[in-house]
């Protein structure tokens, strides 16, 4: 699992970890925070510098190394903003899908596919994700087992994958 520092390919780091770092930053700060992309760029730059300076010695995996840098930078960012604004930026519970045209289009296609699902899948998605009931509450409401709730969600996801690929 652990990767030797000498074997680290910087291009691969940027390619593989930019989406992961972006996800974590947007989840923590909210994608409506205008600075989130700057924070991601700073983190990637920091990672590259630290690897080049030999600070990554392969004691942990490169993923854990980048996660640690990401978490620290996010905490610093919130502290800075808190000092300036007297309050932390409001984190979005999930990244906004409407941040660019492509994502907006993907979200629209996905929403249309969900609408076409059979009622037994739609009702599970509505209760579990839209109304945010717990798995047990959904199970109780529909008279099925909690395990069945998970199965229906996973199957719905599988169906949606197929519908979108068509």
């Amino acid at each position, binding site marked *: 699992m652990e990767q030797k520092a000498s074997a680290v390919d910087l291009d691969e780091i940027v390619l593989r970890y930019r989406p992961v770092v972006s996800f974590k930053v947007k989840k923590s700060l909210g994608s409506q925070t205008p600075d989130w992309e700057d924070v991601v760029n700073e983190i990637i730059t920091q990672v590259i510098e630290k690897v080049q300076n030999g600070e990554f010695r392969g004691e942990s995996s490169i993923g854990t190394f980048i996660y640690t840098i990401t978490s620290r930078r996010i905490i610093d960012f919130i502290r800075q903003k808190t000092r300036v604004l007297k309050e932390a930026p409001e984190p979005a519970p999930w990244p906004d899908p409407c941040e660019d045209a492509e994502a907006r289009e993907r*979200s629209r296609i996905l929403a249309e596919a969900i609408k076409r699902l059979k009622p037994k899948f739609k009702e599970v998605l509505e209760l579990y994700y*839209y109304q945010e009931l717990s798995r047990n509450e959904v199970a109780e409401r529909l008279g099925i087992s909690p395990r069945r709730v998970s199965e229906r969600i996973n199957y719905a996801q599988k169906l949606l994958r197929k519908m979108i690929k068509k």
Partner: protein
Amino acid sequence: MKKCPFESQIDDYLLNRLEGGDKEAFEEHYFNCQRCFRLMEERNELISAVKTRGAWIFEPEPDAEKKVLLPTFEKVFSYFTPRQWATVAAAAAVLLVAVFGVLPRFKGAPPQFVLSESEVVRGASLTLMSPVIDTAVAPAYFEWKSLGEDVEYKLSLYNSGLIWTATTRENRISIPEEIRANMTAGQKFAWQVRAYSSRGTLIAVSSRVEFQIKPAE
């Protein structure tokens, strides 16, 4: 392929149900596991679509009702001959005259509701069901106990002042996305429902229930 034990935590993480060490362990894991990260991105898109377009996705489809009703209607229509239909229509007309023309003359006085200055109705109670406690995110709908058929409900949502009002004949109403978008963490809200009879008479007023969208930790 063997399922990764962290896979089952994807939903909890995205719905902000993981806390402290569990959350950190999960985050560290997806920095190391491409498969879990890919699954999480896919699930996140699903949740985002549901959250942002849920009102549209889950609205009842009028077409579905039509599809069910149309064959039934055709079946019933072909059940009688035109002459039989004429008889049925005449019988229905007589019935209508009896119901709307004659019976109201024997009907007692409408129920009297005693209203206080603040419009509180004594004689019928309206119970609010959801949300009645603080919530983690802006609620997707309001729900109250039904007072039966032919009742129109008027819901009012307050923050520092009235921010939204809507009427419905159901005992539940979805909150429009544009209103939900402005209901952010830390704010306090209150909501109240008034019920009106088909003649427009106020028949019940609920208490005003307060809830807060809990600030993120």
